[in-house]
């Protein structure tokens, strides 16, 4: 979005600076249960700063949408407190929260034109007609849909519909905007384009955005911070960089980006590092992330952190044979079968030319290998909870 709109008022930056200290949005020990037995959300503590772009990322059933719905006011927490600008919103119905929301299916009103859709939040606020017209025009300008004002939503493409939904959620200048998988229904190219647009709107308007998605690359691209949800709670909260490079659990390591996982058993722990005996033979030195001696563990290594060692190198060296090669243009993925039968994916340059069955030596620095206890939930063992 190069032609960024004219004077769009920066999100109510003037109001209540004191609240910033405590966090703009604050979840304190929030729990939600639909049936009284299982929890869709458990022990949730989360603080969102003013102007932040926070993404709730997780597989379906992990509680992220329930969390968003509680913040929007569509669901009430079973326990715990949610505050918005320091005030508890427990008894505040959704229409009094002044939170903009964008839905996955856009939820545009089919019986109204684009203009009427965008005017709706203003007209229910009893703003006078002339003012509505200017503000609707400005909002549609912002999403570059000014000339589509008198169309019906069904006459627009998916991307255009979502931009209308954005304009509608922003036109009444809420200080907080929630987005529930807003790009889920769009194709890949359009989705990437819209990610940029949303990010630019966020920067331009200074609004706080809480964004829900199950697409980890979307989360990494857009967010200031990402909260990874699993089994109704936050598995890890941090910047995209933190999550990618220093995952704190096997689940986060495998959910964010691509990772090789080797199963093994911790032989001994020395300081930050540990020695892991791999199942089926072989051993590796890795960073110890909460593992205990003698316990089963998973070692996660990013494909790009693995190298094909020609000469002697410090660190882990594993002998393997080439099992296959996937050509991806700018790089290749090499499938290397270890002697113990486990297969590693190694990112190699586009010029590499190994034949199947050729022996290779795979190496990696211990600092790039992270050993997690095996019992903490992995991406493969997400228990289904209610909600979402």
């Amino acid at each position, binding site marked *: 979005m190069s032609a960024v709109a004219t004077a769009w008022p920066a999100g109510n930056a003037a109001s209540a600076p004191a609240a910033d200290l405590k966090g703009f949005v604050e979840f304190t020990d929030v729990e939600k249960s639909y049936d009284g037995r299982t929890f869709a959300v458990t022990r949730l503590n989360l603080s969102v700063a003013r102007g932040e772009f926070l993404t709730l990322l997780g597989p379906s059933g992990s509680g992220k949408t329930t969390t968003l719905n509680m913040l929007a006011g569509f669901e009430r927490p079973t326990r715990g407190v949610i505050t918005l600008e320091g005030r508890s919103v427990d008894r505040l119905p*959704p229409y*009094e929260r002044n939170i903009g*929301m964008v839905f*996955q*299916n856009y939820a545009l*009103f089919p019986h109204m034109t684009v203009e009427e859709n965008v005017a709706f*939040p203003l007209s*229910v606020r009893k703003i006078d007609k002339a003012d509505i017209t200017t503000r609707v025009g400005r909002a549609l300008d912002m999403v570059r849909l000014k000339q589509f004002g008198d169309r019906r939503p069904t006459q627009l493409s998916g991307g255009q519909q979502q931009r209308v939904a954005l304009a509608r959620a922003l036109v009444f200048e809420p200080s907080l905007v929630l987005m529930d998988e807003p790009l889920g229904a769009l194709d890949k190219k359009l989705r990437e384009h819209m990610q940029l647009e949303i990010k630019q709107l966020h920067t331009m308007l200074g609004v706080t955005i809480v964004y829900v998605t199950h697409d980890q690359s979307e989360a990494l691209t857009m967010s200031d911070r990402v909260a990874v949800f699993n089994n109704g709670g936050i598995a890890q909260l941090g910047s995209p960089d933190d999550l990618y490079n220093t995952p704190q659990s096997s689940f986060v390591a495998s959910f964010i980006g691509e990772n090789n996982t080797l199963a093994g058993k911790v032989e001994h722990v020395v300081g930050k590092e540990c020695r892991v005996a791999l199942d089926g033979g072989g051993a590796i030195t890795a960073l110890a992330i909460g593992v205990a001696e003698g316990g089963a563990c998973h070692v996660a290594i990013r494909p790009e952190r693995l190298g094909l060692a020609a000469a002697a190198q410090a660190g882990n060296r594993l002998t393997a044979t080439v099992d296959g090669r996937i050509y991806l243009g700018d790089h290749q993925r090499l499938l290397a079968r270890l002697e113990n039968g486990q297969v590693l994916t190694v990112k190699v340059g586009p010029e590499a030319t190994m034949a199947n069955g050729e022996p290779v030596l795979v190496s990696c620095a211990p600092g790039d290998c992270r050993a997690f206890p095996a019992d903490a939930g992995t991406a493969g063992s997400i228990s289904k909870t209610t909600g979402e």
Partner: protein
Amino acid sequence: MTAIPPSELDRPALARGRSAADTDLRSVSAAIRRAEFGDRLRSLALAAPLLVLLALSFGIPIVLLLSRAVYDPTIANALPQTSQALSGWSGSGLPDDAAFLALAADLKDNQAKGTAYELAKSLNARLPGARSQVLKTVRQLEGAGDKPPLEVVKSVPFWSQPGTWPAIANGTHAVTSFYLLSALDLRWNADGSIERVPPEQAIFLQVFMRTFFVAAAVTLATLLLGFPLAYLIASAPKGLAAILIVAVLLPFWTSILVRTAAWTVLLQKFGLVNDMLLWLGVVDDRLDLMYSRIGLIIAMTHIQLPFTLLPIYSVMRTIPPSQMKAAYSLGGRPFTAFRRIYLPQVFPGVMAGCLLTFILCLGYYITPALIGGASDQLISNFIGNYVNVELNWEMAAALSFILLVFTLALFGIFARILGLDRLKLV
């Protein structure tokens, strides 16, 4: 994406290639039309058996029956000589003796052919009391012996009354507006203009009004009861919704006669409803629910409820919950959100349901016959009476025709207001 507007295309290039492109386009669209025509022909062929069945069992009988409203050759056929003799009659006063003689001859012929009763009945429809007079005259003509037929006919005062001969003359025209006018409580008066029938003879307009009133009341009642129920079902979890739908449909699967009979049990003076009202202390005395307008409306509302409810429900089901969530999150209070977001979207379903119920109510027969009192009989009961009891099919056809016209007009108005494509009947 919609087509790219021409303004975004290369205009000069367009202009250059226009004539060639136009010819191309024309031949392409002709080919498309040909292909579509074949398709249509095929689908029409598949529907042909049904269309033939409909035409034979539905369309043609309806046309034939309705034509009886304006085409009644009974009198013309039965009185050929009289018709001839009356052709020169001015229409005022009594015709000449030739007409009386012709009548006598015609009556004798009818007696011989065994069609005298039919004639008497047909004349009676136009001229109340004519039946007995015709039959009496026929008998006297038979037993007259040597007495000249002219004298016999003239001896029956009926044939010399002022209204008789105009009615006969009128009846000798096979195409007649008599029945249609009667169905609207109108008639031709002596000087050839249309006038209202005297109040004591006017019944049909009142019956039509009553029919429309009952239909409207039932429609309103089903809407008031059905709308919240449809909303409940549409927003209930799947399992509960299925149970509720079955509960709504269960009476729907029962014979209308059985349901009506059940209501007679419930509504009668010493029936369950009265017992309950009395026990609850709502009333001091037992109400006359049977054979009353209120009982009729209650029973019809019960029968019609699914017809109103189902179209509303089917439209409600298509409205995703996120619509209302969006309205709330944008600041719409529940009532505002309902009025501005929900209601406009379910409106086509509401209209369809109400239209369905209203039109069906216009044709109700069994329920008013069994539950309604004498003054609650609807137009169908009168039509049924003319067909089954009076054997006056011409009048039945005329009433049916008027009802059909009213119904179609109503449908037309609805379709005009709402647009036929927006009317979501299923």
